């Protein structure tokens, strides 16, 4: 068996391991093994590629230097970022890694479509698509990461002609792509395609609000997968086609799940401009409705003498990085024999499952976590539902038609015997409406930063309750 065939079989084995690895990620108990399997297979595939290049014997010293320098630079940057990132900043980092993946796929296409190569339509059609999708994923992911990190304003950025500019840019990249396919030796077509696609990525993400960024990142992740699959068409490498298609499928599914959890359509999110606060019409409680304010001491006593407490962590908890404080409070209550569980909404935190990661970081055992379907039947038995920085996902108005949150799956927090909401102000959530939960007579509002409030609660439980 010659080395080309051996490498092809190794690629096939690696592709199979990617699928099995993703499958093992079905379950928290096997997920880590799945990722290690996938990573190990990737290492084998890369090593096989290097062996293949050595066997050719035609790779110049300069090319080897380029490869070694590039691999060292990229690996060092990747490991550094992966080790140093805070768990709350995870969505940005995934977006950045996605950006460079898309960029790499686009660069491959550019290298292949350079004027002097002049390939046929078998290569130029997937090549042009790869360049287009990879470039959009690159600039779009950078803007998305910037919005989450605060380098780019998170609010939807709109301007005169915000609906027209993307269309003009789309026309630009379609023209560039056609130019490239029909006359592959024209550098101008290549540059037009790259410039229009890069600007399109920026113009597409800028008008979308920061809270929608997870959906955008997920969609761009799928896009990069497609770009990599197309790069596989160009390079005639099936392992790229298989892995790229797998990611394209996973990103699409995730995008749809996330959009559904927020009761929005993917299309509406991508069109942007939601959450600008114009004319949403106050639904639910009027301005005259009474809000009951409680102190940390009141809440501490209420929690300490409860049998069952359900904690509902939300975006405010992630923003305040209060996951360790909430875990400390839960541990303290458990020591007293209180049954504590966490009800995690699919979109709690900044992206689906992000809250689970934050709670895992704070050493919360995952059997204590309940997803939406598991949590809702438990609320009527809960003595206290402790809502920490979650808003729209607890609004009972979602059960009635005619409000911006109607039909959104919510946690039935209002069915608990009593409710405590930790929140900085009466400010509205992302949907821009008042939360009827806050004016429910059984709800006490503890106005404070999540981290401070939870620290106070731990101190109060220790001080007042023996």
């Amino acid at each position, binding site marked *: 068996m010659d080395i080309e065939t051996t490498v092809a079989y190794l690629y096939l084995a690696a592709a199979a391991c990617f699928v099995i690895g*993703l*499958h093992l*990620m079905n379950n*928290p*108990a096997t997920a*880590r093994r*799945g*990722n290690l399997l996938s990573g190990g297979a990737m290492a084998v*595939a*890369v090593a096989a590629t290097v062996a293949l*290049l050595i066997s050719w014997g*035609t790779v110049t010293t300069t*090319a080897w230097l*380029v*490869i070694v320098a*590039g*691999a060292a630079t*990229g*690996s060092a940057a*990747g490991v550094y*970022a*992966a080790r140093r990132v805070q768990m709350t900043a995870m969505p940005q*980092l*995934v977006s950045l*890694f*996605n950006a460079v*993946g898309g*960029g*790499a796929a686009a*660069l491959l296409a550019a*290298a292949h479509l350079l004027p002097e190569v002049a390939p046929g339509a078998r290569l130029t059609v997937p090549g042009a698509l790869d360049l287009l999708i990879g470039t959009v994923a690159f600039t779009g992911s950078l803007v998305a990461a910037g919005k989450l990190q605060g380098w780019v304003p998170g609010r939807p950025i709109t301007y005169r002609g915000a609906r027209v500019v993307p269309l003009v840019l789309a026309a630009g990249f379609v023209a560039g792509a056609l130019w490239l396919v029909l006359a592959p030796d024209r550098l101008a077509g290549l540059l037009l395609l790259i410039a229009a696609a890069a600007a399109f990525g920026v113009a597409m993400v800028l008008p979308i609000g920061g809270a929608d960024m997870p959906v955008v*990142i997920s969609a761009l*992740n799928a896009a990069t997968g497609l770009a*990599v699959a197309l790069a*596989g068409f160009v390079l005639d*490498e099936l*392992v*790229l*086609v*298989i*892995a*790229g298609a*797998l*990611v394209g*499928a*996973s990103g699409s*599914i*995730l995008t749809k799940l*996330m959009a559904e959890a927020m009761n929005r359509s993917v299309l509406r999110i991508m069109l942007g401009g939601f959450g600008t606060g114009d004319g949403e019409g106050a639904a639910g409680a009027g301005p005259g409705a009474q809000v009951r304010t409680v102190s940390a001491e009141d809440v501490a006593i209420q929690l300490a003498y409860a049998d069952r407490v359900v904690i509902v962590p939300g975006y405010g908890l992630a923003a305040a990085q209060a996951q360790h404080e909430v875990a400390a409070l839960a541990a303290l209550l*458990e020591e007293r024999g209180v*049954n504590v569980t966490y009800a*995690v909404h*699919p979109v709690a935190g900044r*992206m*689906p*499952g*992000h809250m689970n990661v934050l709670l*895992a970081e704070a*050493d919360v*055992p995952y059997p204590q976590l309940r997803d939406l379907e598991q949590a809702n039947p438990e609320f009527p038995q809960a003595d206290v539902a402790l809502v920490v920085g979650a808003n729209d996902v607890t609004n009972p108005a979602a059960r009635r038609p005619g409000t911006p949150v109607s039909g959104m799956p919510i946690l039935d927090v209002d069915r608990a015997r009593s409710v405590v909401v930790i929140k900085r102000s009466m400010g509205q959530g992302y949907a821009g409406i008042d939360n009827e939960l806050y004016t429910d007579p059984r709800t006490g509002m503890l106005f404070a930063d999540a981290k401070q409030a939870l620290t106070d609660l731990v101190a109060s439980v220790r001080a007042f309750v023996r």
Partner: protein
Amino acid sequence: MSTPLVIVITVFVLSLLVGFEVISKVPPTLHTPLMSGANAVHGVVVIGALLVAAVADNLVGYLLAFAAVAFGAANVVGGYVVTDRMLHMFRARPRATGRREG
């Protein structure tokens, strides 16, 4: 010399279907690690970058190849490391002993 287009398209379509099937079963708890893990899988693009770098023979080619290899390596190495860091924290029992879950 190259694989017939219909074969490549067949592989592409079947891989998409496998992806939908495997991934639609993942619970929301693991969506963030999954997104990160899938993100690492498309770091396979680094193999393409190596193949392109190997045949580069002019300055523009070298520059494109360097950027492609560096980007691909950052994607694949960083992606797997950060996913492992996240999954390492998922555990059924707390690290400290003595606490039992109800």
